[in-house]
């Protein structure tokens, strides 16, 4: 077996392989480090952090659904200061490549978070999770509002300066994903993360009310993979030069390759790690084997391949 060059870049950041944790599905890495070295990953995308500590939504916070699950965590977390003090040094010690995910309730909060991160060394990129309710606009999710999402990215870009790549993470729950994507790229995003969870609900038939404490939750897992692949394909078609971190239901090498062929430069694994703590490692290995079997010598050649190959007549 010849070797495959699995390395990838997202903006100016280089990663030895394209497999990342998905934000919120690996905490800050400590728990998975029990199962494999974090340095084996392309990188760790940390759980979205806000400026203050948060306790999150009431339980139950999850419901299993056919080939998927709903979650409603509500961004429980320690706040940016504790995160910078405790989690970043740990990840650096593990030699993990770090993508920090930030979340806010106002445009200003995102900029504040960016300001705090600006001076922290050892970070490869910032993922801006804009699938959060905007308290200044009736709780409308930033990512569903072209204007608000643009302003968030613009604020982060201005604060952070030109160095650190910004990855804008978008919600699929919109009428026109491509136009939202264009907006945030115009505003300074170097890359896009696609997709965040899809809004869903389960009714508990014992109580006859919404099962989740927060009523609605985000649908993730293999159930949403076709939606994610479509989103990646559409956005890559419209903006082939913008790197995409693909995610949504990837649980094996073939799923990852599907996203890469659709246009993803990297792939995040979320829900699959819940069912299989070694998922990140096995996906990376299977992806390598598959690329090899298909005669690719480099991951880069496979990115967006589905756009370039014509239908056999």
């Amino acid at each position, binding site marked *: 077996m010849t070797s495959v060059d699995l390395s990838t870049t997202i903006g100016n950041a280089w990663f030895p392989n394209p497999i990342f944790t998905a934000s919120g599905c690996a905490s800050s890495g400590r*728990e998975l480090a029990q199962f494999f070295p974090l340095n084996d990953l392309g990188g760790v995308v940390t759980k979205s952090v806000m400026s203050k500590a948060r306790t999150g939504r009431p339980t139950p916070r999850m419901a299993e659904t056919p080939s998927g699950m709903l979650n409603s965590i509500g961004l429980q977390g320690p706040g940016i200061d504790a995160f910078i003090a405790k989690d970043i040094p740990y990840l650096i010690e593990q030699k993990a490549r770090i993508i920090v995910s930030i979340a806010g309730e106002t445009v200003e909060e995102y900029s504040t978070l960016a300001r705090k991160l600006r001076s922290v060394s050892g970070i490869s990129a910032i993922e801006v999770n804009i699938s959060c309710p905007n308290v200044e606009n009736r709780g409308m999710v930033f990512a569903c509002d072209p204007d608000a999402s643009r302003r968030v990215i613009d604020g982060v870009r201005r604060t952070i300066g030109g160095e650190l790549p910004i990855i804008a993470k978008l919600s699929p729950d919109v009428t026109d994903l491509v136009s939202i994507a264009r907006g945030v790229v115009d505003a300074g995003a170097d890359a896009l993360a696609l997709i965040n969870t899809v809004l869903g609900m389960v009714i508990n038939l014992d109580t006859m009310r919404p099962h989740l404490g927060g009523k609605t939750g985000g649908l993730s897992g293999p159930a949403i993979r076709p939606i994610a692949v479509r989103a990646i394909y559409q956005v890559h078609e419209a903006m082939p030069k913008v790197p995409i971190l693909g995610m949504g239901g990837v649980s094996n090498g073939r799923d990852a390759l599907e996203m890469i062929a659709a246009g993803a430069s990297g792939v995040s694994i979320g829900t699959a790690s819940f069912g299989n703590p070694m998922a990140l490692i096995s996906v990376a290995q299977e992806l390598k084997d598959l690329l090899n079997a298909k005669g690719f010598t480099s991951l880069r050649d496979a990115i967006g391949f589905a756009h370039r190959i014509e239908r056999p007549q």
Partner: protein
Amino acid sequence: MALINKNAAQISAALVSNKRVGQYHQLIINIGDLAQLCKPGNFVAISVGGETSGMVLRRAFAISRVSTSTTFGGTMELIVAPHGQGSRWLCAQPEGATLNLVVPLGTAFGIPTEPVQVLLVGGGYGSAPLFGLAETLNARGCRVDMLLGASTAGKIYAPMEGKRAVNSLRIYTEDGSMGQMGRVTDPIASLIKDMDIAVIYSCGPMAMLSAINAITSQSDVIHQCAVEESMACGIGICMTCVLPVADETGAVSMLRSCIDGPVMDGAYVQWDKVGQVL
């Protein structure tokens, strides 16, 4: 935290035996040397539904007992209620089937260093880990009394062998079909008064744990309880399994029951705030 699950490993393991016991199934699984690392209170997370399953999450089960000297090598015993899709699939597995496990997970019951008097209270399949615990406590010289409760006789799990380590066992059923009619929590207050109980160990529905805590909080008795919140990952990465717990300073935070639990000190759990926004 990573220290807590420091022994956890994902393995393929053979189902050695699957027997119906009342309304439950007793499963014996060959886990080899990992059996030596399992402590009373730890749990196992099992994949369900097979390769093409639509169920993406593992199911958690309390480890009832381990045996390190069987003909199969180390084994662990689980008591499973065939409740929903996942547990029904598990209970339908034939002997010889291969299961995918992550084990051992979570905190263990704290064992007193002195030979004190302890009370074990189990609800439904919650009695499962108590028998293994009783053996450990008994070996430490503790006097172990046990109360088991359930809605009906078929849901009382109390194996003959298990009773050896127990000084007394009282059973309560709500329909009176076995033991006394009533709730397992009914006698606790007077038992605390009459006996010199140092620790209550409990495992069962959250309402039962909460009711026990209401009693112990009026006393000096330590309450070690194994909580059961719904868990997506079981290994601390998803934040779905949280419940509000105070620390020494009284500050309440949402702790993960898979990593900071399932065994917790009942006195710190904020029972009235479970399922609420803080």
